[in-house]
């Protein structure tokens, strides 16, 4: 059963066609993350679902009801914004109860809901403060609370964590995840932070220029990106790329050839075409391992120690290559190192059309 269903959605501004014939079905209780770079139309899509933007064509169904023409309040959604959008002049309690009061709900019921939400979010001691007296994280929680009290089926989040600092972001991420496991609502979550997307999502929709590139589980997206854009977009540092040609079982570039034994092609059979070979930094190694093949040896350009692991950067055929190694590795800048790769973990993309092979 679909909780949200978007059919042939089109959205144009005067001069820009932002969403193009977009179809998307979101299952009940699913946590769907919309991921994409800035300006790709994520917020626009979310606003369309919420009914805050007038769409140009298409339909939006929520809980099997066509809500295309409904007011936001009648769609059974709650929304959390990037800037929190708390009502600055109201206390936290008022912020939470405003929507309910507007609806004309009984006092007792309002009280109950506010209490429940504030217990879930642990903001009870803050109920009588104003937003300006809260820290970023607390504000964010109140913003979530405002959606919570409305007791809706669908939660929409528009980059709810991007105004927070790294540490807080990590903490609240876990809290949102926990909230989802507790409430089991449908959640649609917009972000441009891939860590958030990967950790939170049941499924991720990767967007580019108003079109969905891949809609799949985080593992799929990470391990089987459907095209070069997705492959490059996900993963930090980005996937390393090599341009060459597939000849039978081998990937050939310049004088080198890499045996592709073990790679699962989508289309079986013989391949002979120009292609990109992609490999994630963590699937490269600086020492020989089982099933790994040696790629090349190169000079270490930069070392980025990150505590438990270190990223080693090389200059390789005009591109920056990165390799993730364990933090205990003793390496020195300007030294030469051998790079090994695991062909089973590699990715191949056709040069033409840039789709996965």
């Amino acid at each position, binding site marked *: 059963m679909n909780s949200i269903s978007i059919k*042939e959605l089109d959205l144009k*501004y005067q001069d820009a066609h932002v969403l193009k014939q977009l179809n998307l079905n979101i299952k009940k209780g699913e946590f769907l993350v919309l991921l994409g770079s800035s300006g790709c139309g994520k917020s626009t899509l979310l606003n369309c679902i919420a009914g805050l933007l007038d*769409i140009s*064509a298409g*339909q939006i169904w929520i809980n099997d009801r066509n809500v295309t*023409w409904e007011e936001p309040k009648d769609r059974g959604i709650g929304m959390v914004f990037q800037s929190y959008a708390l009502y600055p002049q109201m206390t936290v309690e008022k912020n939470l109860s405003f929507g309910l009061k507007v609806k004309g709900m009984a006092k007792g019921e309002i009280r109950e809901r506010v209490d429940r939400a504030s217990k879930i979010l642990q903001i009870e001691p803050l109920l009588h403060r104003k937003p300006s007296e809260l820290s970023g994280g607390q504000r964010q929680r109140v913003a979530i609370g405002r959606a919570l009290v409305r007791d809706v089926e669908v939660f929409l989040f528009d980059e709810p964590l991007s105004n927070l600092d790294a540490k807080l972001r990590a903490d609240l991420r876990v809290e949102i995840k926990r909230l989802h496991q507790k409430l089991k609502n449908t959640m649609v979550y917009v972000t441009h932070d891939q860590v958030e997307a990967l950790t939170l999502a049941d499924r991720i929709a990767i967007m580019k220029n108003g079109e969905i590139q891949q809609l799949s589980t985080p593992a799929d997206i990470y391990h089987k990106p459907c095209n070069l854009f997705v492959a490059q977009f996900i993963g930090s540092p980005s996937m390393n790329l090599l341009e060459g040609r597939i000849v039978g079982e081998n990937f050939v570039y310049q004088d080198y050839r890499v045996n592709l034994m073990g790679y699962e092609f989508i289309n079986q059979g013989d391949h002979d075409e120009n292609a990109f070979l992609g490999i994630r930094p963590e699937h490269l190694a600086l020492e020989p391992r089982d099933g790994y093949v040696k790629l090349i040896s190169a000079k270490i350009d930069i070392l980025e120690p990150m505590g438990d692991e270190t990223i080693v950067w090389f200059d390789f055929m005009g591109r920056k290559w990165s390799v993730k190694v364990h933090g205990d590795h003793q390496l020195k800048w300007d030294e030469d190192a051998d790079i090994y790769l695991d062909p089973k973990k590699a990715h191949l993309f056709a040069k033409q059309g840039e789709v996965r092979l």
Partner: protein
Amino acid sequence: MEETMANTAKVSTPRRTKRIQISSLLASAPMAIVAIGVFVVCVGYSVMLSFTKSRLFPNFNWVGLDQYERLWGTSRWVVSVENLFLYGILFIAFCLVSGFFMAVFLDQKVRFESGFRTLFLYPYAMSLVVTGLVWQWMMEPSLGVQNVIQRMGWESFEFAPLVDPQYALYGVLIAAVWQSSGLVMALMLAGLRGIDGEIWKAARVDGIPAWRTYLFIVLPMMRPVMITSVVLLAVGVVRVYDLIVAQTGGGPGMSTEMPAKFVIDHITARGNVGLGMAAATMMLLPVLLVIGPWIYREYVRPAKH
């Protein structure tokens, strides 16, 4: 593409492309009525009168462009228009410059800032009628500043612009700037306070002297404030009347006559509404030509980002 189009046909397109709440239309009704009823219909009516031979009262005896012919043959009108341009440009320029300087100096973490601010601002609360009168006195040669300073021993000191047709307009200018520059100061001060503190730090690290920072970095950043100030001042310029009547009555001679005064004199005391309205229409023209494009560019065309 063709196929997808066929598929989409099943998915209905919203009929109503906009969901406007009735109340929002209702709330905009007064604005619509005023904008159209007053500023379109009434102005249109007045423009129509300019093609008639209306005297004391509006009537509709059409005379074509006669009134305009007479208008541009009237030296008082021509002088008024010249005066308005000179006055308007100088007034706006002086207000901006002095307002900016006052704001900059007040921005130096001075003591009694709020005291100074109030002092600079209070003339704005005085009606122009009064402003004109007081300044008339002060510029009167045998009573005012000139007299006082001459008696203090500086015999050759001269400051009586109002009695000389060549300088009278500048006398009016002083009073007008006195009255309005405080407002500009407040606007500019607000603008200064809104500028990112890191810009200042960057300029200090770069070793840019404060005055250059103000002039070359901060000032260009205050474009929005400037625009607001110019709009407010320009509204005052086009309408300038009270001050002239109180301070010089348009004299000596025609030297401080202004178009608004021309219009009012003709639709009241002189009982020639047709000519007055022709003059008024001529005043609207530059507004339409100069301000119109600006309004269009700044407010009508752009959608909210």
